[in-house]
């Protein structure tokens, strides 16, 4: 058959149909024209048109036809068709032709139509289009050899439309959007359709046909870069992992797919993938040796995900590093990674300036990669590792942040045990918590294999549901097992006569008795503390010292300074239980009882020679606690109700303990009482003067006196930044406690002056202290003072705070800076309003 006449013939037929449809009012004519158009799409032997005609129609008339149909969507004839006719003749035209053309027309028209029944009609056709798997047909049509020959531009638009379908419909339909078109439904569907296309590709490859993955890879890349990688890869990764397990062809298809992802979108695909796969093996099967062949991938996997980003879970690290370690071609990369991670870990500047979370992440990566190295590989790296370990440990241990120190200790322990330095191991004492345990656990490689189901029948859509279905029965079995075993376990214990029915009383008062007699007088107590070598007497004296001080105020005032001196220099020679707490409590009691002399003594001693850092910290702590106690309302008469009530009730057998039933009654009353609003359940507490206010200056100013005079043993602005941080923090606390006192304004100015010099200190503890102090200054200073006294400084302070809030590496510092900014703004606003109100009045 000649091509030219065919083409002309088809064009004629189509044109005639159009004419009929646009002019005729006769239902029969319209139906027959629609049937004619449909016949170009119906394949099969009984088709009225030849295959050449069909190909011609598909090539050059299909889009036109659809556009014509949509433009006549409001025509009368459409409404006069029966529902069955409409869906088979009209809707069918959209579902049978080349899917890319149909989709493009549909999306275009949806974009143009207003909210109307026609729009609804089109959207339901889109739904049908998606439900009937046309998307897979579309993708597959681009995989096969006979890919539609269209322009690059068309493809780009098509990819864009496919990815943006939920956005386009949502923009049009607003709340009337269909569930299938929501991202949560659509993207998993898209992922399934991609899998089906891949499956068909595999099938075609088996049959010896060449295929191209470019289009699907484009779709995958674009969908990931647009932020839907989680939804898509959650469906694709498990399925790919299962399919590539035994099937080499699948592996090749998968590798090719990844390789074809455009470079610019590679990162989002990879980051999504490493989070979605179940483990290193699965990742290896899905991407193959992509990390070796693709520079971008190599950068992302060996550098960006490990050293630049740190938001991922430990599992991701395990996956990446395990993937690098799994293949002998990739192992050199693991060594390279270890080197760079080690550098990052031991870099002193990084320890100081990077966020804690990142340091934790790097530590994890380091431990994981060390655990993955073989002994022979470790031998080669040994000297390098050792050197970096030692310098890194030092910079970690120098940090004033406990978590960083712990991290350094754990990593040091692990590395040294792995390096096996002549059998010697580092061993530190640190508090076990979740973080250290997790770090420690990283050194033992997780041996559990990925629990993956065997590849099921490749039924495309069903496969994902099937894999998820295989799990519940197992769970049920285990649940039954548990419930079956539980009763048998408890049976032997369910002895009715056991002691368990008797509830124990509080037995905390059961302490060891000591033989020595407790001191009765404060002077005896002091004497013992000074000179006694008897452990028991010393302990008793120390235990009773606080109560003796508080009971005998006058006696305490006579010897307060002397006793403070003794306590400050006291050492825990006998490792008495709770020594530090007892000593501190006594010193606080002394400071509270005899405020001015003791604070004078302590503040002078703080800057004098020959004290250990611990003692200086003790001084600060004692002062802070004493200030807190002084500023608290006086609570000498503590609720006497319980005490008197118990003594008045003396029934013959008032039960085992009288308080007990009172609690019960109280509870019942509480539960029966209906409260309209909370609050004011207790009588309003009586006001009492802040005892700290008059003496705040004695606490505060002497500590500011000598900070810039370095001594041989104490250099506050130099190496002793631990103390500097505490000092500033304590000063901030004083200001906060002196709130509303007249002296607070003066204190605030002095403190701001002081901290200005150290506001960009390298140590985050100091910076935290500074920000805390600034916060409490803004909280405690009256707003007019703030503006008047600090007028010019305020703007500099503001810019500094904004800078910190934005750029500080420590999260606490950032939030404190934000807090201070808020406080400052509030205070300034209030002051401006007040002054405005004043000027209005006048």
């Amino acid at each position: 058959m000649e091509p030219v006449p065919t083409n002309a013939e088809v064009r004629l037929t189509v044109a005639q149909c159009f004419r009929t449809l646009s002019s005729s009012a006769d239902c029969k004519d319209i139906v027959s024209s629609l049937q004619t158009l449909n016949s170009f799409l119906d394949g099969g032997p009984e088709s009225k048109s030849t295959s050449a005609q069909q190909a011609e129609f598909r090539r050059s008339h299909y889009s036109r036809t659809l556009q014509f149909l949509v433009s006549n969507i409001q025509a009368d004839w459409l409404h006069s068709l029966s529902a069955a006719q409409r869906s088979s003749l009209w809707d069918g035209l959209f579902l049978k032709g080349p899917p890319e053309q149909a989709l493009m027309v549909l999306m275009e028209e949806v974009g143009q139509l207003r909210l109307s029944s026609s729009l609804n009609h089109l959207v339901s056709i889109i739904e049908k289009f998606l439900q009937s798997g046309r998307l897979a047909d579309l993708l597959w049509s681009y995989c096969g050899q006979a890919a539609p020959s269209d322009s690059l531009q068309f493809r780009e638009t098509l990819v864009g439309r496919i990815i943006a379908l939920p956005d386009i419909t949502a923009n049009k339909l607003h709340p009337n959007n269909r569930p299938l078109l929501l991202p949560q439904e659509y993207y998993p569907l898209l992922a399934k359709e991609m899998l089906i296309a891949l499956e068909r590709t595999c099938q075609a490859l088996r049959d010896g046909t060449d295929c191209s993955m470019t289009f699907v890879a484009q779709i995958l890349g674009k969908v990931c870069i647009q932020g839907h990688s989680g939804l898509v890869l959650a469906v694709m990764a498990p399925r790919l992992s299962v399919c590539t397990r035994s099937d080499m062809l699948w592996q090749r298809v998968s590798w090719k797919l990844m390789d074809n992802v455009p470079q610019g979108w590679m990162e989002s695909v990879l980051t999504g993938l490493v989070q979605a796969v179940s483990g290193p093996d699965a990742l290896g099967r899905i991407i193959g040796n992509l990390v070796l062949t693709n520079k971008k991938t190599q950068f992302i996997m060996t550098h960006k995900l490990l050293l630049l980003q740190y938001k991922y879970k430990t599992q991701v690290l395990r996956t990446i590093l395990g993937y690098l370690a799994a293949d002998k071609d990739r192992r050199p990369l693991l060594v390279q990674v270890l080197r760079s991670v080690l550098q990052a870990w031991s870099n002193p500047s990084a320890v100081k300036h990077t966020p804690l979370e990142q340091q934790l992440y790097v530590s994890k990566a380091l431990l994981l990669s060390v655990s993955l190295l073989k002994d022979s590989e470790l031998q080669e790296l040994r000297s390098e590792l050792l050197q970096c370990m030692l310098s890194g440990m030092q910079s970690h241990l120098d940090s004033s942040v406990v978590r960083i120190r712990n991290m350094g200790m754990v990593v040091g322990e692990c590395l040294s045990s792995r390096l096996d330095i002549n059998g010697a191991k580092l061993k530190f004492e640190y508090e076990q918590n979740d973080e250290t345990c997790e770090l420690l656990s990283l050194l033992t490689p997780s041996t559990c294999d990925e629990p993956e189901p065997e590849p099921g029948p490749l039924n495309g859509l069903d496969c994902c549901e099937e894999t998820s279905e295989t799990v519940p029965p197992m769970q049920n079995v285990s649940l039954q097992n548990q419930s079956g075993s539980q009763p048998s376990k408890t049976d032997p214990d369910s002895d009715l006569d056991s002691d368990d029915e008797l509830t124990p009383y509080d037995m905390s008062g059961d302490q060891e008795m000591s033989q020595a007699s407790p001191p009765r007088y404060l002077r005896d107590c002091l004497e013992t503390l000074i000179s006694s070598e008897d452990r028991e007497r010393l302990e008793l004296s120390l235990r009773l010292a606080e109560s003796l001080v508080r009971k005998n105020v006058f006696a305490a005032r006579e010897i307060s300074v002397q006793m403070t001196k003794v306590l400050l220099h006291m050492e825990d020679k006998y490792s008495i239980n709770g020594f530090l707490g007892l000593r501190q409590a006594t010193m606080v009691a002394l400071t509270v009882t005899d405020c001015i002399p003791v604070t004078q003594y302590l503040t002078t001693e703080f800057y004098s020679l020959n004290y250990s850092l611990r003692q200086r910290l003790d001084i600060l702590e004692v002062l802070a606690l004493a200030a807190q106690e002084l500023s608290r309302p006086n609570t000498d008469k503590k609720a006497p109700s319980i005490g008197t009530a118990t003594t008045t009730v003396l029934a013959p057998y008032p039960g085992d303990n009288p308080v007990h039933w009172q609690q019960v009654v109280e509870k019942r009353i509480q539960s029966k009482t209906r409260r309209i609003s909370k609050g004011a359940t207790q009588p309003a507490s009586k006001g009492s003067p802040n005892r700290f206010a008059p003496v705040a200056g004695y606490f505060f100013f002497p500590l500011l006196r000598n900070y810039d005079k370095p001594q041989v043993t104490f250099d506050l602005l130099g190496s002793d930044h631990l103390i500097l941080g505490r000092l500033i923090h304590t000063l901030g606390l004083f200001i906060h406690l002196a709130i509303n006192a007249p002296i607070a304004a003066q204190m605030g100015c002095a403190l701001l002056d002081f901290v200005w010099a150290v506001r960009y200190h390298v140590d985050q503890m100091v910076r935290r202290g500074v920000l805390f102090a600034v916060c409490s200054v803004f909280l405690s200073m009256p707003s007019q003072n703030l503006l008047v006294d600090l007028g010019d400084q305020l703007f500099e302070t503001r810019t500094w705070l904004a800078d910190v809030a934005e750029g500080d590496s420590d999260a606490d510092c950032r939030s404190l800076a934000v807090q201070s900014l808020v406080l400052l703004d509030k205070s300034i606003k209030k002051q401006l309003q007040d002054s405005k109100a004043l000027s209005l009045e006048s």
Partner: protein
Amino acid sequence: MIERMSRPAPSPIYTLRGAGGALNTLHFCCWGGCAPVLFSGSAKGAIHVWDLNSRRAEKVIEAHSGSSVIWVNTLRSSGNLISQGRDMQVCVWDLSEGRSQLVESLWTGSVGFCQCSLLETSPATYLLGFAGQQTEEINVIELPSKTPVCTLVPEAKLGMVMCIKLWQPDSGPGPLLLAGYEDGSLLLWDVTQRSKLSQVKAHPEPVMCLTFDPKCLRGITGSSEKKLSSWMLDSQNNLQVQDCVTLVNPGVSQLCIREDGKLLASGGWDHRVRIFGWKKLRPLAVLQYHTDMVLSVAFSDHEDPRQRLLAAGSKDQRISLWSIYSNGAETG
């Protein structure tokens, strides 16, 4: 819900003062129709009869001529009081109708602190076990006839007899006797066969006190150390040490099991009374009131379990009374 709260430590419901001496021994007599009384024996040789309703000393018997009274008990059939003193005498007193008359006295010859043990064999006849004149000797006699039943002397040197307990097993003909010795050994004697049935080393230090629960054939001993040692009798009458409970402070003066077999009380040298669940020896409470060693503890024999009391006598010359785990509701 309420049971789950850790309740504050209990306090005594009342105390009895004025004994004028350390209280070595306590004995309740609360059964029958008569008013409940508590007998106490003091180190000054006085036996006080405390009326638990009026909470006053109803009567004071100056027994044992000023020597320390170390043990008091009552003979159930006659209602007579029996007491043992450091003057090596065991005396029986008739207290009926307001009398306080010495009925009988018996010379034991023991200079130690070992308390007697009394066992009712049939109405109106009793067996009385007591430490004898020789260091390791235990004598058993029948009352009121004062017929000597046997003398038990171990072959090995075990030191002084520290505490004894006579009891009648359900199976088996004759009464058995448990005795703790100075070297920490615990012996089981068959009284009728006059033979040693079993021996076990319960403590490294002297056995200070022992108590035994014939219902479940378990007992427990205390010593001058920090441990209570619990043991049991198997079917062949062999003593087997089971487990120990560690105390906070060393030294136990007396142990006592409540009649219902639920609670064990210990009087400690650290001024405290400790309460344990008897089945698993779980610590339940620490009763702190006394300011000196607790020398004696006793559970009352009230017929109504809800009225049951615990009494503790101390060297500080006071008796404290506690109502603990006696309420049906809280033990349920």
